[in-house]
């Protein structure tokens, strides 16, 4: 096998040193009754060439038509990825390194992540960004735990039911074994978090609102901030579309205490939902409460600029059972990817692309309106919105997906039973006017 360098001679001469007759003897110290006799029931080694054919076949079962068009988002977005990113990220010095425990030979990763932290803090308007979490949902769960752990009295976190359904489920999963509770904040009929209802809730350690929310609508963070202050609860802002903050006022600007969300939009491929990029950021005040890796700038003994993993005293390998979290490996290479993406788009690109997303979404909504779709809300949105669809749409949608790999909206009923015949649509910069006109034609005809 080409990955295994040992020749027969190597094995023999090494066994002589270790004092074993055969390779099997290396395991003599393990009691016989603990050993397996069932072998490993997995087919024989595939050659690189047979692997290619097999995987091409398997991959083709996913998206038959390579000119797919996604009019769906809901936490995973189709954005353009500049060709320099896969090239740079695939350089083995980045790809095959471990977490930089030896900073002297990890400065590439370390400076790159430090720059990522800086640019993410910029994007979200926060003081501190961590080096990454698994995804938006787990980052948000960590945020909820911070509020619950740090609050003197309250043991409840209020989460808008317009936070991504999966994110709410993850918070549930994380809280179940604890003494902490999650309550959901209902929504209004204009597709926003019901802040009146929120006002009537008490003893809250944290309040979590997503904007743009799961329906794509932009929430009123100003009021949320006010309520959090009144109730002495941490304001936790979340998001699934990081690019929206190329255009929208960022949560930091509204005074959020913690901002958690998904960074997949920043140059990372959808890859069937993972790996994405969990972003977790906070105010200076939260510095020591934030779980996950942090890179800090320092100097070497000759005074040369350098970077290290820092504040490890929050982490499991030092604090063990008292750590702020159990996180160890995170999504470092995705963070590096996002860093490269942010440096590539830059100040000019991020605004232009964000605006373009909004423009396409507006054009899509208008086009659908003209063919009988009804906007569920008239609330400002970024690149996603909910439409009540004409009947017969479901079958048309499936046919489109099957024949042309066009995915037109996500049925909201499974997530919100009350929203029968409501679909969540999305348009990004990858969707052309032509695509939208084509879709509009297809769903009428």
């Amino acid at each position, binding site marked *: 096998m080409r990955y295994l360098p040992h020749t027969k001679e190597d094995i023999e001469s090494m066994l002589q040193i270790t004092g074993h007759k055969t390779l099997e003897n290396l395991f003599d110290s393990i009691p016989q009754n603990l050993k397996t006799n069932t072998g490993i029931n997995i087919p024989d080694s595939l050659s690189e060439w047979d692997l290619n054919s097999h995987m091409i076949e398997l991959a083709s079962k996913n998206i038959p038509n390579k000119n797919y068009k996604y009019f769906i988002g809901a936490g995973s977005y189709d954005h353009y990825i500049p060709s320099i990113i896969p090239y740079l990220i695939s350089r083995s010095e*980045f790809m095959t390194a471990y977490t930089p425990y030896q900073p002297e030979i990890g400065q590439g990763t370390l400076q790159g992540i430090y720059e990522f932290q800086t640019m993410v803090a910029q994007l979200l*308007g926060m003081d501190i960004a961590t080096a990454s979490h698994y995804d938006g949902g787990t980052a948000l769960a960590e945020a909820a735990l911070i509020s619950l752990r740090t609050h003197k009295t309250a043991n409840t976190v209020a989460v808008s039911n317009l936070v991504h359904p999966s994110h709410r489920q993850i918070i549930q999963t994380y809280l179940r074994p604890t003494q902490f509770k999650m309550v959901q904040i209902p929504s209004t009929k204009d597709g926003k978090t019901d802040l009146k209802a929120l006002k009537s809730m008490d003893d809250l350690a944290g309040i979590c609102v997503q904007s743009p929310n799961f329906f794509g609508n932009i929430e009123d963070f100003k009021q949320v901030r006010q309520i959090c202050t009144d109730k002495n609860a941490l304001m936790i802002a979340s998001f699934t579309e990081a690019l929206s903050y190329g255009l929208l006022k960022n949560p930091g600007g509204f005074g959020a205490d913690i901002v958690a969300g998904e960074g997949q939009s920043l140059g990372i491929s959808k890859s069937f939902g993972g790996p994405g990029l969990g972003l977790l950021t906070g105010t200076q005040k939260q510095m020591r409460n934030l779980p996950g890796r942090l890179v800090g700038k320092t100097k070497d003994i000759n005074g040369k600029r350098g*970077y290290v993993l820092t504040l490890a005293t929050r982490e499991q390998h030092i604090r063990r059972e008292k750590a702020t979290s159990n996180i160890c490996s995170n999504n470092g290479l995705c963070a590096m990817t996002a860093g490269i993406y942010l440096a590539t788009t830059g100040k000019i690109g991020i605004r232009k692309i964000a605006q373009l997303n909004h423009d396409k979404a507006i054009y899509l909504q208008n086009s659908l309106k003209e063919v009988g779709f009804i906007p569920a809300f008239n609330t400002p949105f970024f690149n996603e919105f909910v439409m009540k669809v004409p009947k017969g749409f479901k079958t048309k949608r499936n046919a489109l997906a099957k024949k042309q790999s066009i995915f037109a909206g996500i049925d909201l009923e499974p997530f919100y039973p009350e929203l029968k015949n409501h679909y969540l649509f999305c348009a990004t910069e990858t969707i052309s006017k032509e695509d939208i006109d084509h879709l509009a034609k297809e769903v009428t005809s």
Partner: protein
Amino acid sequence: MTNKPGIGGLKFNESEVWDRSKKGRCAISLPKSDVKESRLDNSLIGDVPDLPQLSELDVVRHYTHLSQWNFGIDSGMYPLGSCTMKYNPKTNEIQANRQGFAAAHPFCGDQFSQGALKLMHTLETFLAHITGFDAVTVQPAAGAHGELTGMLMIHKYHEKNGRQRSKIIIPDTAHGTNPASASLCGYDSVKVSSGPNGILEPDAIAAVMDEDTAGIMITNPNTLGLFENNIKKITDIVHAKGGLVYGDGANMNAIMGVVKPGEIGIDVLHLNLHKTFSTPHGGGGPGAGPVAVNKILEPFLPVPRIVKETTKDKETYKFITHSPDTIGRMHTFYGHFGVLVRAYSYILSLGGKGLCDVSKLAVLNANYIKEKLKGTLNLPYDLPCMHECVFNDRIQKEFGITTMDMAKRLLDYGFHPPTIYFPLVVDGAFMVEPTETESKESIDQFIDAVESIAKEAKTNPEILKSAPHITKVTRLDEVTAARKPCLKG
């Protein structure tokens, strides 16, 4: 040592990315706008994030220079104990980047995701075969995430049995993520020390195991690279008191085809695909931490789960989210699919027999290093080891040389140092895991390097204390970094 791998050469300074910024530059190709601009209400629009402004070449040079400061597996031997830094095959990257996988949207629906579903389902079956368990979930995003998943299942199990427990037994050799994961489930860690020869003794467990204890977390082979020979007795003790046994399978690379945790009393186990199954670590992830369980715990697995339905003419796969006893959801979608593709490709490339060879050779390499270096470095536990061996600096201490000094000096020799100061039970631990993809030649070179450094420790300790010398930066001031944190520019 004559002709050590490490030498000095030309590298490039690189400023922080914003120092390259110049107003008006943009490195991304802006899609042309074919629809009219729609302005949002001004009250909703924010200031433009002040990101750097660069040309495409600026970006390429910046990150190319950064990459050149890094050390990866392709650069040289990377014997980081407990991390299984084996070769990451390039073909796995090709597979993961195929459009059918990389561009797949998680909400296309089962009907349009059959390739992805089949891959995940098959991978779950493979991992079940390898570990000897009944069911597997590939949803957890990393090892620690797998631990949490497993511990949540144990917690739910006790809850279901009508009586929750408050404690969990954790050996002193355990990785930090173990107690941290247990804490997230509200369990108090009860620390037990390993016995004189580095493994757990049944009596020690018996002494602490009781009806208030949810179970035990065991890493086997443990972080000293030793196999827990008493595992069966221990699991019996724990089971007898109604507890469950969590297995940390991060070190599975040592025992594939030799021992199946599912057959020796472990109830739940996580694997690190970014260790045993060759997916690149990426300088800090993404990884994947699938969890394998026996029948007892299967009902508690996270959702969604993947099931296969076979009708006479075809197989179809689908997600099911309804599962009454599930602990719930652990990941926004289905886990780190891109990582799963790589691990799946690796398993197919090795085949069942190949995986058995992997473990044999990984253990051979570790034992070879142990035998060759045990005179040079102190070996606290001189026993047959599995995938790694743990030395310490006891001998060098007498010249005022620490493990840290030796690790830094190894950089000058062109090697990535081993894991140091872990496990905590060995002070000044120097934990070497070569993995099976290192050839005898590179291992012999590593041995030479360590021997020559040990000599230097006697003859020229200063050169160790001031190491590293040829890296871009030398030892960094971590104290100030933590005392006055500067976390952004």
